[in-house]
């Protein structure tokens, strides 16, 4: 287990995503309104690449003919079979008991902190004045 610096916070705009490779694992980073989340890039259903999916909301219905649209921008649909995963938790909508994308905790750290800490920086330089995304793998 190591805490790894995986990206500059500023390079992922709100609503955007970025695929990174961390210690041999493909991980997708998401920015939802300034908050950062990370999911393994493998769909737990049949291994589609989640980073290539569409980000949507969640449509639900308390009864036929009535629709709620919630979690806008917080759901990623697999580009293959369309499974829906909550980006914040990795939980699938249809089968949250067994079918969940691996979620990683993302911390935003100041460059000044990272220069000293027990971190493994990836392939880019860390500058004191920037903010960085750090996940534990």
């Amino acid at each position: 287990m190591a805490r790894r610096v995986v990206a500059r916070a500023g390079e992922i705009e709100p609503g955007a995503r970025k695929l990174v490779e961390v210690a041999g694992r493909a991980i997708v980073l998401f920015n939802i309104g300034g908050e950062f989340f990370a999911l393994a890039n493998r769909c737990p259903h049949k291994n589609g690449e989640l980073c290539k999916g569409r980000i949507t909301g969640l449509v639900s219905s308390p009864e036929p003919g009535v629709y709620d649209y919630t979690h806008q921008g917080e759901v990623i649909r697999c580009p293959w079979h369309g499974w829906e995963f909550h980006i914040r938790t990795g939980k699938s909508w249809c089968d949250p008991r067994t079918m969940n994308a691996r979620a990683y905790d993302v911390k935003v750290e100041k460059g000044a902190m990272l220069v000293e800490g027990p971190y493994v920086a990836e392939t880019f330089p860390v500058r004191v004045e920037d903010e960085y995304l750090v996940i534990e793998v």
Partner: protein
Amino acid sequence: MTSEVLHPSLDPASNRLCVIDCDIHPKDSIDDIKPYLAQRWIDYLATYGTRARHGFQSGFMYPKSQPQAARRDSWPPDGGLPASNLKFMQDQLLDFYDIEYGVLNFLSPTGQGVQNSDLSVAMAYACNEAHRDRWTGPDKRLKASIVVPYEDGAASAKEIARLAGMPDYAQVQLLSRMSELAGKKRYWPIYEAASELGLPVGIHVFGYSGWASTNGGWASFYIEEMAEHCTSCQALLTSLIVEGVFEQFPKLKVVLIEAGFAWLPALGYRLDKHWKKLRGEVPHLKRAPSEYIRDHVYVTTQPMEETEKPEHLLQIMDWVGWDKILFATDYPHWDFDDPRYAFPTTLTPERRRQVLSENARKLYGFA
């Protein structure tokens, strides 16, 4: 922490995947088939277009869940529609999964089901010619289905006879939604030609029959259309059996493509039950209906039913017959199956090999 999950190797004896994919959908355009169309038909298409047997001008019967019903990662980076570019198909499918052979089924354009019957014939001819240029010629792993103007049985038989024996073609292609049930005599010239010339008849789901998508009328949702293939293919297969097609053409082999197969045992049980009492109505049937299914019918896997308990799927496969099940990805469509993850892990290596490649190799005569 979690440990790395390794990709399961499909063939423990070697590292080769050994996959034959029995349902790939390359995409052609009208421009691609023009070199083989007479100027009369090029002008016709530019002026009038094609007219399918349905009540709307263009578009799908139901909106698909993804654009072009395709995997969102299957759009070629250089532009064009999914599966329109051989190089990208090689990168993403054929080379990536080390596919030995791929059977190509064509959805549009094909001329199949086009209401102007002379145009239907001309387009089917042009497509079959263009498929050698575009697909089976450049990549010898690819084997095309022969598209036929199926509403015209005699013209279809002629087209089959013209191409049978060429190594580029693996089977004859029909769609599940034709103007009449598949067992009707108008289609018999197709079965006669195919069985005499040693080609299986692949029946792929979809098409435009002009009939409602369910036998109770038009459904509201795409999910209903997707599930409806079970019932419509039950009707289609029942027709093939009870009309006596398999009695008339004992060498005929039918491949049901993309129809699922968990409904097959139920149909067999039901038909056998009734046949014991109603046999006199269809005396041309010499055997129980389920025996024709077992002897003549192959199925492709994708999108096979996903049972809650994996052993139930294996029991169904056992009924269908381990020598009758053919692996398919359905590339580039959104409900694609990955050969590494499509089957329960409890499937034995021997049966896995049968389903992934050996059954198709035998059926289609691939080396």
